[in-house]
């Protein structure tokens, strides 16, 4: 059976997830927005031919991965040194709205950790699938994701001290709030 659900549902349900993945992979800015647009445009185009039992989120995240690679390559090809930086309007609204600095913290992670976090924690792909698309062993990807998350938690939970043996960030924040 082919896909018969309205595509709008996919945008509503997975739009934020895909944008988180794009931002984690490419940084919060125009490149992430372009990757999001290319992902959903490609998805809309092939939507009627998709088997209806497809895991739509995982499928979109894999498309986003390919679009992010395209954009990275294109940026590398067109990166010509120039004295005049083109003014590029931000489509993000106010970039300074990232008050917690969480996207900056993601951008600051070493690449392997950043990608492992992007596809596993933001995109919901299992470690094994993340390893398939970014290379390396499942165990290495699992370790990179865990290291990345530990580093992120240090940043975005900075105001909320927690002990290392509390495994759940959500619990930490609840405790932090009640202190």
């Amino acid at each position, binding site marked *: 059976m082919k*896909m*018969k*659900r*309205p*595509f*709008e549902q996919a*945008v509503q349900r997975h*739009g*934020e997830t895909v*944008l*988180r993945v794009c*931002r984690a992979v490419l940084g919060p800015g125009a490149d992430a*927005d372009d990757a*999001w*647009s290319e992902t*959903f*445009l490609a998805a*809309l*185009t092939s*939507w*009627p031919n998709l088997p209806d039992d497809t895991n739509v989120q995982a499928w979109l995240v894999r498309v986003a991965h390919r679009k992010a690679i395209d954009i990275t390559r294109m940026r590398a090809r067109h990166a010509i040194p120039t004295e005049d930086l083109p003014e590029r309007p931000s*489509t*993000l*609204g106010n970039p300074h*709205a*990232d008050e*917690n600095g*969480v*996207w900056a913290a*993601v951008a600051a992670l070493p690449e392997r950790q950043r990608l492992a976090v992007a596809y*596993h*924690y*933001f995109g*919901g792909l299992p470690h094994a699938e993340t390893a398939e698309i970014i290379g390396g062993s499942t165990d290495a990807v699992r370790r990179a994701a*865990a290291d990345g*998350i530990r580093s992120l938690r240090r940043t*975005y939970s900075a105001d909320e001290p927690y002990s290392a043996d509390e*495994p*759940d*960030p*959500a619990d930490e*924040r609840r405790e932090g709030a009640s202190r």
Partner: protein
Amino acid sequence: MIDITTFDVAPFTIEADAISDLHARLAARAEDRGVLDIAYRTIESPVGPLLLAATEKGLVRVAFEREDFDAVLQALATKVSPRVLEAPRRLDVVATELDEYFAGTRRAFDVRLDYALSSGFRETVQRYLPRIGFGHTQSYRDVAEFVGNPKAVRAVGTACATNPLPIVVPCHRVLRTDGSLGGYLGGLDAKTTLLTLENAA
């Protein structure tokens, strides 16, 4: 080991307008690329919220809220195409014309119609209905005669009840022979509102 189910992405905020901006950009690009099979939007009206949907050929669906917009979109996805996106621009003209109609300044609609959801005798009847002018009414029996099938009074009733383009294709102008309202997919209150609007104008 941190399990995925316990990782909370909430701190990784997406600004409220980020997705709506990207969505609008997607709709415009999909239209340019020719892959926006069905564009839709909702509008407010004196007969409640209306869903408007158009293919590249023309207006394909007008729906009342009581029909359940999610169900209406699902039916469009199944019967016409699942490439469905909320994309108001394609519906701008018909939305304006509906505003004018409800304001009493428009008596006929001038938009292309796509009868993709109609077929057979129902389509014959639905294509005939726009010939019943603003402020006029006909009986189910009259319509059956005009479309050349005088015995098909009940089938005319079914054609009106399944009209995919209510208001624009004026099935509300068809009444029982005794002048009583008959039925209406938007509810009898909506039918009365439309007939009153047309008689007052």
